């Protein structure tokens, strides 16, 4: 799939390919022309991606080729065992987790999982977890705490599932409990928004000592579409809503609601999963290393203080 603002770039890339092919066939020397075009493409990419609007970032965060939680997990771990179930109701396929080894050390990695094709999307419920998903996440976090293993959460969800059974089984209670319990976890917790960070469904696994966002992701209290439908009473104002919500990584950092932005490869994570995973891995491990120098009590009190400082009031 191509987004509007990606089109001029792919057009030039196609031209470049054609030029190279032609050069091979005719054996003429066009190295200089190729070089010029390559530079032009690079410049255009830089320009385009530097000046993306907030809505365009939202589009990138949902790009169907974007790496999902399990893609990153398999990319960054040397070994991984997926763990299932909340020991209560079932196994939520929209929330995955397990133990992984990175550079000979163990980590508990948890995150929402989206599907790549129609069948998978259905199975993963579009990355919208039910209460048992949040309870499974908490169970895995408690297991990690028991064995003194740091926790990594990867957030990518359009929201907690708003279904009938979800309400019956206490969607609100499940998220609320996670928030409260995550504040008291004794092990380091680092969270990264890798795609969509929609509201309580995202926050439910995003109480971390450090919360990071990848460059082309969004995190807010509501999606731009729903915000438009409520405040403008129409679905057509999603661009304006995205602007008003200030939901990009850069915005959230300047509001001091997150701790850092993770760079993505030029052209977005969907263009180079390996490079994106590498940036993600480095950023997370760096944070965990620093956090391990603190005592559990220091981590907990700093985690609490950090979130308690969020908000702007006048007195």
């Amino acid at each position, binding site marked *: 799939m191509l987004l509007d603002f990606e089109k001029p770039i792919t057009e030039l890339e196609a031209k470049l390919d054609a030029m190279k092919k032609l050069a091979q066939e005719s054996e003429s020397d066009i190295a200089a022309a190729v070089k010029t075009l390559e530079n032009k493409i690079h410049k255009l990419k830089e320009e385009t991606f530097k000046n993306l609007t907030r809505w365009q970032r939202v589009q990138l965060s949902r790009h169907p080729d974007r790496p999902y939680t399990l893609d990153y997990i398999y990319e960054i771990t040397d070994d991984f065992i997926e763990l299932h179930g909340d020991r209560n109701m079932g196994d939520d396929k929209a929330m995955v987790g397990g133990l992984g080894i990175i550079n000979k050390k163990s980590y508990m990695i948890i995150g929402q999982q989206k599907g790549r094709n129609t069948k998978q999307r259905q199975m993963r419920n579009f990355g919208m977890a039910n209460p048992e998903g949040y309870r499974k996440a908490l169970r895995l976090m408690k297991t990690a705490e028991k064995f003194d293993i740091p926790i990594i959460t990867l957030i990518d969800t359009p929201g907690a599932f708003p279904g009938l059974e979800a*309400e019956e089984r206490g969607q609100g209670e499940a998220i609320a409990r996670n*928030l409260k319990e995550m504040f008291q976890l004794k092990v380091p917790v680092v969270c990264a928004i890798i795609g969509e960070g929609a509201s309580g469904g995202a926050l439910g696994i995003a109480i971390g000592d450090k919360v990071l966002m990848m460059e082309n992701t969004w995190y807010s209290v509501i999606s731009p579409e729903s915000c438009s439908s409520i405040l403008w009473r129409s679905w057509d104002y999603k661009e304006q809503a995205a602007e008003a919500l200030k939901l990009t990584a850069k915005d959230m950092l300047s509001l001091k609601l997150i701790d850092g932005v993770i760079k993505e490869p030029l052209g977005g994570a969907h263009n180079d999963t390996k490079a994106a995973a590498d940036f993600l891995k480095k950023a997370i491990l760096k944070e965990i290393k620093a956090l391990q120098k603190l005592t559990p009590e220091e981590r907990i009190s700093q985690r609490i203080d950090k979130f308690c400082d969020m908000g702007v009031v006048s007195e």
Partner: protein
Amino acid sequence: MAWFKRQVKGIQTPTSDKKEVPDGIWYKTPSGKIIRTVELKNNAYVSPEDGYHVRIGSREYFEILFDKNEFTELDANMESGDPLQFKDQKSYPSRVKASQEKSGLKDAVRTAYGKLDSHEVAIACMDFGFIGGSMGSVVGEKIARGIEHSIQNNKPFIMISKSGGARMMEAGLSLMQMAKTSAKLSILAKKKIPYISVLTDPTTGGVTASYAMLGDFNIAEPNALIGFAGPRVIRETIGKDLPKGFQSSEFLLEHGFVDFIVDRREMKSQISLLLRMLK
């Protein structure tokens, strides 16, 4: 014609004299029962004939719960900022101002401490009349400080929720208020100080997904709407009509998310009894 003309401009009534609930002489409940408002007030705003619980605000709850309506309010002057310069069809500050003028309140929650049946307690109570009882920075901060007051003074904390959820106009900041209040509640729990969460009509969204569901005791007024997602959103998701009584207090009791349902007329005595049992 002087009596047609407002001689002094603007609204002169002090906030304390403003009324939010039934100010006519008569009140009609949804089932059609009619009652004099004076009687309604003396009956904790519950219609005696059909038990209908009229939606009330912090002013009324404080009067019902605090002994002799005596209490000390915390952070009474805290107001909202406009960190995002949020603007939809209206600017956020103008929405806040309009709501302040209409309701006589500063924001959607008030916090206070005093005595409830001689028990020293801190109470936070939300006002639905203020932008749908939505939770922004002020609501989160006042509740967090209310809990902090409980922690510092070892007093039980009582939260009366009545909210449509997080306040969209503060976007990410609103979302983090869920985290902030839950953070403070995790300390309260560690100190083994009781937390009673009272859920009233309506309690939905981010409020349900944070402090409202975290009580040592979750108690609900009868027939209140309580849920995470709103009924309209769920209906659209599943493409079917919702069963009768879905997301009511009784539904939550049935599914194990509230401890008991309390008639507002017995709320004070029930809370008092609970606190006595914990001493």
